[in-house]
């Protein structure tokens, strides 16, 4: 069947055409640009009515804080949200893509999306890219079968847990969970526990910092608490302001007017065609 050619994006997979050239450049002394990593603390827990997800808001580029208040809790479906750690671009692109696929799936089936569907789509995508898509995710949501919480690793393996942490601050946060988590927490207790775990990551891990974002998912209802806590406000701002002195000294100012150069032609004709 010959179809009229439409602009189609190339089908799947990475194109490794430039790898040899990149290697050659590095050998010749080029410094490869680094990417934005989220070096994060992300957590999730299941409480009596549903799932609570939490995340810090610092995005790092090596030792520099690139974004002091980024959003790490991504929308997947009205009843499913996902926290992402790893390379920021990877987590955003992958969650965006799966969210799009789930929207189409919802239209075709006429039903609410299930968390396991999102899980399967995410893990098969990550497995296909053999860990090169550096996204470590905490996926949580409430669907017709109840509340669910999963962790997904960059290579595509998953865990199903009642409470989970990921990212560079995961050990600090897990310490809080392991000592204080119990089944049947109420909403307020759950939110407080999640906030405490994120705070633990913020203060004890360099890769995490700034504020606490929380998302509470229950049956048929979601609450996105952006900047639920801001334990790192900028406390001192000088009233006088800051004057930055000029580094260059002016020794001499000389103004040279540009002289118009007019040629006078004797006996010239008026403008000809």
């Amino acid at each position: 069947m010959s179809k009229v050619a439409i602009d189609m994006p190339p089908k799947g997979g990475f194109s490794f055409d430039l790898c040899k050239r990149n290697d050659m450049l590095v050998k010749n002394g080029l410094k490869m640009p680094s990417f934005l990593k989220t070096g994060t603390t992300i957590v999730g827990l299941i409480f009596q009515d549903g799932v609570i997800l939490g995340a810090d808001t610092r995005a790092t580029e090596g030792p520099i804080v690139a974004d002091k208040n980024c959003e790490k809790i991504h929308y997947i479906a009205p009843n499913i949200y996902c926290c992402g750690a790893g390379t920021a671009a990877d987590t955003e692109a992958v969650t965006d893509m799966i969210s799009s696929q789930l929207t189409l799936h919802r239209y075709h089936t006429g039903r609410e999306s299930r968390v396991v569907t999102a899980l399967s789509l995410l893990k098969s995508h990550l497995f296909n890219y053999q860990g090169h898509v550096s996204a470590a995710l905490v996926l949580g949501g409430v669907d017709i079968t109840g509340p669910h919480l999963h962790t997904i690793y960059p290579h595509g393996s998953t865990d199903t847990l009642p409470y989970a942490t990921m990212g560079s601050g995961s050990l600090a946060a897990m310490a809080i969970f392991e000592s204080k988590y119990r089944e049947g927490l109420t909403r307020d207790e759950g939110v407080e526990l999640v906030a405490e775990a994120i705070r633990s990551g913020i203060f004890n891990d360099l890769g995490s910092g700034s504020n606490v974002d929380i998302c509470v998912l229950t049956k048929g209802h979601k609450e996105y608490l952006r900047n639920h806590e801001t334990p790192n406000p900028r406390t001192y701002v000088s009233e006088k302001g800051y004057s930055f002195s000029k580094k260059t000294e002016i020794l001499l100012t000389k103004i040279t007017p540009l002289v118009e150069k007019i040629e006078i032609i004797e006996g010239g004709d008026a403008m000809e065609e």
Partner: protein
Amino acid sequence: MGDSQYSFSLTTFSPSGKLVQIEHALTAVGSGQTSLGIKASNGVVIATEKKLPSILVDEASVQKIQILTPNIGVVYSGMGPDSRVLVRKSRKQAEQYHRLYKEPIPVTQLVRETAAVMQEFTQSGGVRPFGVSLLVAGYDDKGPQLYQVDPSGSYFSWKASAMGKNVSNAKTFLEKRYTDDMELDDAVHTAILTLKEGFEGQISGKNIEIGIISADKKFRVLTPSEIEDYLQEVE
């Protein structure tokens, strides 16, 4: 008729300048169940007959009016399975647009892309044109809009339109009844009355389908009980 020699091949023009297959596709549409759409000042309504082949068919499982995006819906006249293919493609295109531009697709864009798909199937080898005409109803920043797309891939914006069986009577009725400042509720009543004109048998909430979109930009299909309420008001 000289045309008949050219009627087998889709991609061959007849001497009179027509693509006979497309004419036949329009005939297929013309023998489909009546559907219509009306654009009001604050919304759009689309409606169709839902005549099932037998009383044994579970009418709750049949849905002719489909949603394409939260603010765009569609109804068809003609071959149901063909419309399913188009609905699927349109939904995907709308979602791809949204992923790329992070804004809901404007109604004109979606209509244009759907029409392009339909046109593709009139200029390729080994395929036949779609045997459906679509009425696309949407509400975006430009306000309420109603478009009709034909098997040839041509599309027009309408204030009110009808397709399928009984189209000429329905259009005459709509021409008489349409006013520019009509509100959505009046439009629904007019739609019901238009359907009633050519309806064989007793009209009820179970054998017609109505979809509306108002200024809240949320397309929805009315439930049978809501249709019954409107029917009562019309009586």
